[in-house]
């Protein structure tokens, strides 16, 4: 529900009021280990071994961590200006000439503005272009102009396109390397800046198309992608204290889905299946999993945690994550209700 901009606001808890964060608020809570610019650092390292890698951006190098690559390889970096259509078509042209372009912008601009160019110039030709986009889902308080709450829904229907939604710094580093190796177009959602490091505690390696069971539990199966995996891992620890055993299946590849791993996990009887994603509940991982389960005749009790089918408010990110149900506290609260 959006407040009218004309309605007077009450200064509730004025002393504690949270302010709208910078364009990209850090999603890392205080005290948690982080790595800086995992995508940019990894790409710069990879570029050393692979002269075919080039980087392009549409006026957002600093905000997609591509500046790390640009500083190290200025002659392999193309600043295309605020022009996402030519960003994508020029990336297609470079791929046609044998290069491996990494094109970066915000997820909203790639998905909403440049769709046709990604579809026809890149995907239909199965070209080797990697589209890496910051601000996926609800990771900025700037309102709907910058919140890519439906990017996965937009892209899932595009043939040939691999879609990656990594969880943390480790995931991003490994995924960057994997997509550079992969032949064909890729869309990757990006957490930039100081990115939390959580998966190092688990026996985890990223592989395109592979889901990983990070922990097991008898009562709830979380199936999650992106930053929601770190949230459900935190939630699982809290719920464990309540004697609610939670399994977590991390699904960083949205397309192609690891159908085998999802089915195997969901087939275990007696568990509530909760899909958690940083995306509208329409057309994303949740609906992808639901359709898969229905097709295969697997029918557990099924719930979704994701963003509502609305244009979201502007505001401070922690407030918004609570308001729209994707904070750890909200996940815990909902799962308690569902398992009562």
């Amino acid at each position, binding site marked *: 529900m959006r407040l009218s901009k004309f309605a007077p606001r009450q200064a509730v808890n004025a002393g504690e009021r949270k302010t709208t964060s910078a364009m990209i608020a850090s999603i890392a809570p205080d005290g948690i280990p982080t790595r800086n610019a995992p995508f940019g650092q990894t790409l710069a390292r990879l570029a050393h071994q692979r002269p075919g890698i080039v980087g392009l951006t549409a006026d957002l190098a600093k905000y997609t961590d591509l500046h790390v690559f640009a500083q190290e390889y200025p002659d392999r970096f193309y600043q295309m200006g605020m022009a996402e*259509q030519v960003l994508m078509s*020029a990336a297609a042209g470079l791929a046609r000439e*044998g*290069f491996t372009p990494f094109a970066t912008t915000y997820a909203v601009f790639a998905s909403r503005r440049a769709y046709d160019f990604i579809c026809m110039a890149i995907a239909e030709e199965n070209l080797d272009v990697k589209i890496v986009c910051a601000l996926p889902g609800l990771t900025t308080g700037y309102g709907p102009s910058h919140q890519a709450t439906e990017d996965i829904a937009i892209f899932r229907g595009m043939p040939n396109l691999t879609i990656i939604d990594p969880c943390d710094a480790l995931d991003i580093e490994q995924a960057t390397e994997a997509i550079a190796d992969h032949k064909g177009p890729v869309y990757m959602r990006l957490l930039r800046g100081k990115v939390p490091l959580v998966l190092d505690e688990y026996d985890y390696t990223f592989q395109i198309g592979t889901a990983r069971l990070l922990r097991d539990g008898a009562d709830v199966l979380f199936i999650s992608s992106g930053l929601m995996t770190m949230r459900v891992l935190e939630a699982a620890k809290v719920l464990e204290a309540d004697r609610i055993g939670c399994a977590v299946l991390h699904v960083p590849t949205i397309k192609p889905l690891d159908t085998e791993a999802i089915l195997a996990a969901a087939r275990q009887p007696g568990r509530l299946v909760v899909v958690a994603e940083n995306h509208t509940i329409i057309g994303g991982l949740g609906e992808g999993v639901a359709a898969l389960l229905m097709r295969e005749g697997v029918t557990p009790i099924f719930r979704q945690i994701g963003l509502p089918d609305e244009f979201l408010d502007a505001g401070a990110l922690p407030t918004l994550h609570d308001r729209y149900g994707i904070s750890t506290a909200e996940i815990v609260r909902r799962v308690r209700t569902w398992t009562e």
Partner: protein
Amino acid sequence: MPRAGSNVGLTERAYRIRRHAVRMGQVQGQGYVGQALGIADVLAVCYFHALRYRPDDTLWEGRDRFLLSIGHYAIALYAALIEAGVLPEEELETYGTDDSRMPMSGMAAYTPGMEITGGSLGHGLGIAVGMCLGLKRKRSDSFVYNLLSDGELGEGSTWEATMSAAHHKLDNLIAIVDFNNLQADGPSTAMLSSEPVTDKFEAFGWHAQRVDGNDIEAVRVAFDLARGLKEPRPRVIVCDTRIAKGVPFLESRDIAHFIRVEPHEWTLALDALEKGRPQ
């Protein structure tokens, strides 16, 4: 290079390109034959004067790239590719039929010599920008040509690419605009006018020329100038063409964007072409 040692003149090449196009139209009973007839002179200059290519090796690294962003002009490019020896002439019988290498709209995966998939307008020039950047990275001296249409100038992405090409000083890019002033709903200048078109390109930092696209000698001179120019700028040649050029009874037809021709008229069209054939 097919033109080396050949004594077939450009006007004869243009005639044959027109004839191939009309024969393909005859197979289908319809098609964008008007555009093909209009652009045939420009394509003759491209394929028999300007472009470097190998008919038997369409992915030869040293080739000039010819991008057709206007996919519906595919019949025109097929006709040129047949004349250039890239596609066999017998294959024109398959135009637009199931499993043909020559679908109605041009797609890269189907046809040797078709560099891009161009049906969604406004893509070609941006891809050309990327290819030009890539060729420069490879220290290649190949040119990238992009044949656009006047209607396509309505697509904003074309102007993003225009700015980008100038910004990156792409002197290996030559855009060709087929200005036949006709698009699906009527005259291009009445839909969304791009005039004064050369002024716009010049204001964007390009070297611009405008010629009568059905005057082969004028087109040839313009291509030579565009290639030889020693300026760090992309180049555009705006070619004013007449739709259905060479077949007078079609030239004067009102609905010429997508020509439907009575069965007996195809023969008449071929006769008209023959009458205008250079001696």
